[in-house]
């Protein structure tokens, strides 16, 4: 049996850093532009009070993960030496929420901490723009049973962060440490996985690696491994002779923060309906398939799209859900986009869906339009101007094209006659291609069958 635990570090969306007033848009700035004496740890500098927005976000997440809240927030110092750490210690809070739950996975604790700078090992330089970006760390119990479950857990967690509007969207905003052990083996930790997707790859690799070792009778040693994103493998780090001792103690510069009841109540009000609740509601209110509902709620913007389309086009709920989950999601995933980042808007989606579902355009035409809209970042009306999408409803026109294709392809026609169904599909494909997707494949198929039979 496989046992997996995760530690997720996610950057929080705030205007200012956690202990100073420097801006957080570090990706847009030149190296070491967003810095001050505080986030570079200059001699004599002191941290300012804990960023209240960041604290509010952590409480929000803790509540969404059904944690018990701690009322005293104590900032500690975690001591270690590394070039990206300007003070030689990282400020990290004691748990803010404990004993939470997401699905079947128990959440051990969540807390807040500061991001260190970025050390470029090859150049030997450090960029402190990132130093002091607020992070949440979410620690699960080892309740996850497979890399696939880990992926699902992270997808839901990611959806929640999106719903709460607390996380940063840029790539690299999340870093995950995952640990995995197999019955008869030892716990191995994989550090610094930089994306949710990477977690699945790293865990699959690690699972197979450990299974192979155990099968060979080799011993899996307790160690920390590094995930190599490019090769999708994990590499053992140099073993430490002793366990690292961070000498945690309360940061004397920051008086403990008391979380008031009012603050908690205020945060509670800001928590929207979460993915699981929304999915259940979609199933009962719109009578759509649970599987489809679960995909729709994975991104709040997608869920909102479904809901507003369903309100506009009553009776078409399942068709809308299938369309979003199917062709739309396929094109988004292919481009690694979310609905939000795709730039698509609801009105265009409604227009496109209406034309498609009313049979004015074909499946192929609809996909072609989507591709055009996503790749050129244009609206549906512009697509209509440049592409001829209207379905060919004129059966005479269609029959003419079918005759042409039959005449050009005597061999597939013969093959079909002797019972080769694949040849029929080939012929249909040729017609659709000839019409640039404007022919409805079902109708084409019928005509071809009819024509070939008539020739007999």
């Amino acid at each position, binding site marked *: 049996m496989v046992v997996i635990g995760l530690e997720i570090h996610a950057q929080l969306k705030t205007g200012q850093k956690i202990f100073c007033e420097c801006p957080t848009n570090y990706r847009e700035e030149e190296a070491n532009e967003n810095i001050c004496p505080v986030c570079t740890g200059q*001699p004599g500098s002191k941290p300012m009070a804990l960023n209240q927005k960041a604290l509010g976000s952590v409480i929000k997440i803790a509540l969404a993960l059904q944690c018990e809240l701690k009322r005293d927030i104590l900032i500690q110092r975690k001591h270690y030496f590394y070039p990206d750490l300007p003070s030689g210690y990282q400020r990290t809070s004691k748990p803010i929420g404990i004993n939470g739950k997401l699905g079947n996975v128990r959440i051990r604790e969540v807390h807040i901490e500061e991001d260190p700078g970025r050390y470029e090992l090859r150049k030997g330089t450090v960029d402190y723009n990132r130093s002091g970006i607020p992070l949440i760390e979410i620690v699960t119990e080892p309740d996850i049973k497979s890399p696939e479950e880990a992926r699902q857990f992270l997808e839901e967690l990611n959806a929640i962060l999106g719903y709460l509007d607390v996380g940063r969207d840029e790539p690299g905003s999340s870093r995950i440490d995952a640990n995995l052990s197999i019955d008869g083996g030892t716990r191995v930790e994989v550090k610094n996985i930089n994306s949710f997707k990477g977690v699945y790859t790293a865990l699959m690799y690690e699972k197979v690696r450990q299974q192979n070792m155990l099968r060979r009778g080799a011993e899996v040693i307790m160690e920390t491994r590094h995930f190599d994103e490019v090769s999708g493998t994990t590499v053992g780090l140099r073993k430490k002779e002793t366990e690292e001792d961070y000498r945690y103690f309360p940061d004397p*510069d920051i008086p403990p923060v008391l979380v008031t009841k009012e603050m908690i109540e205020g945060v509670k009000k800001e928590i929207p309906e979460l993915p699981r609740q929304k999915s259940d509601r979609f199933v009962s209110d719109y009578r759509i398939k649970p599987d489809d509902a679960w995909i729709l709620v994975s991104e709040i913007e997608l869920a909102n799209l479904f809901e507003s389309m369903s309100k506009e086009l009553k009776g078409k709920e399942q068709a809308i859900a299938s369309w979003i989950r199917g062709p739309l999601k396929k094109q988004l995933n292919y481009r690694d986009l979310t609905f939000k980042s795709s730039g698509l808007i609801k009105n265009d989606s409604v227009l496109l869906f209406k034309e498609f579902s009313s049979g004015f355009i074909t499946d192929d035409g609809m996909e072609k339009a989507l591709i055009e809209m996503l790749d050129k970042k244009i609206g549906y009306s512009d697509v209509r101007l440049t592409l001829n999408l209207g379905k060919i409803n004129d059966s005479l026109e269609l029959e003419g094209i079918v005759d042409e294709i039959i005449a050009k392809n005597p061999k597939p026609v013969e093959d079909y006659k002797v019972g080769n169904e694949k040849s029929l599909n080939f012929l249909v494909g040729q017609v659709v291609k000839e019409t640039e997707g404007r022919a409805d494949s079902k109708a084409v198929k019928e005509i071809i069958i009819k024509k070939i039979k008539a020739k007999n």
Partner: protein
Amino acid sequence: MAANFDIEKRLEQIIANIKKADPEVKAFIDVFDVDAKARAKEVKEKIKEGKGGKLAGMLIAIKNNIAIKGKRMTCSSKMLDTYYAPYNATVIEKLEMEDAVIIGTTNLDEFACGSDTTHSAMHWTRNPRDVSRVPGGSSGGSAAAVAADMCDAALGSDTGGSIRCPSAFCGVVGFKPTYGAVSRYGLGDMAMSLDQIGPIAQDVETAERVFDVIKGKDKKDPVTAVYEEKENDVKVVGIPKEFFEGVDPKIAKVTKNVIQKLEKEYEIVEVSLPSLKYAIPTYYLLMFAEFSSAMQKYDGLRYGSVADRTKELYQAFEEVRGHSLGKEVKRRILLGTYITMKEFKESWYTQTLKARKLIQNEFKSVLEQCDILAGPAMPVLPWKFGEKMDPVEMYSADILTVSANLVGLPAGVVPVGDISGLPASVQIHGRHFEDKSVFEIMRKLEE
């Protein structure tokens, strides 16, 4: 400010005093005579126009562990001897806002670790009252500069007596404000839960004027968030009998006599602080722990001599720290690291916090019986150079001063007598944020 006061003339006089006395006393690390002259000229104009600030024309020396933008902030360590602060401490902003003129930076024990300024990596500072003796520490340079009339006032920092010890040794007035009354932003860390910046001056009035300018909440130092000045009508002065135990009998006699004279205006009661015997170990263990954390940033990559990049990371750290830090600093880092290690934390650091709580509670309850505590400032007279080489012996001289830091109370020292040419001083403790009451009694003693 007197109408005929001429700041430029006063500056000339101070610079002349520095030229004359400082080659021997060596209170200063850097003297900003050019900057000070330019600034004095501006301030003179402002005074003339009647726009001078509250400290217009006051010439102030700054302990060199306080950040002044563009100036060296050495903390008297090789680690920082070429470090130029890129920003101003909040106290510097406040002093300049009120037209004080900064005359220079003063010597200290390296990173404020010491009680006699002989642990400076720069040079020794001598006591102007007797140059064969130490000036006290760690703000020895600031106290000596005031005592030798090389400035009108100075800022020091006090973690366990670092303002009060040298002020007492040099025979000047020194004041450690309530923890949280003065922003620590820009003060080099020693032990963050104990550190406070405060004034040193020739008289109580000047010290109080400086305090009034530098005090107050500062968003850059969250421990000032609770600051709230409290007024109290002082009626009862308490004399803890433990303050006189183990004190040089001559100091005990002089100070007791002076304190007794307060009975004309105040009720005097004897009180007891039995846990004072735990004050030294509690203070030192806590300070070691916090100091070792504060020193983590001096890893050899950012400050000090340049690390040898061809070497393995930790080895490079070790080398730079090895030759850029002094013996006393290393001792404290090692001890502090030891007592905060997982293995020993429970038996040392956690116990220390408990002892601190005990001492805090005891002071709190004693300060319910009286408004003010009075006693001698230092248990010994300033020692001669080379006399106290044993660290434990040096640590024990802090017995009367460390409690104010452990509890966070305001405490000031004022010279009250003379023992064979050396000053004897009284120390006054007040309640949290009743700094003004401490000044009131200090003024009475000064008379």
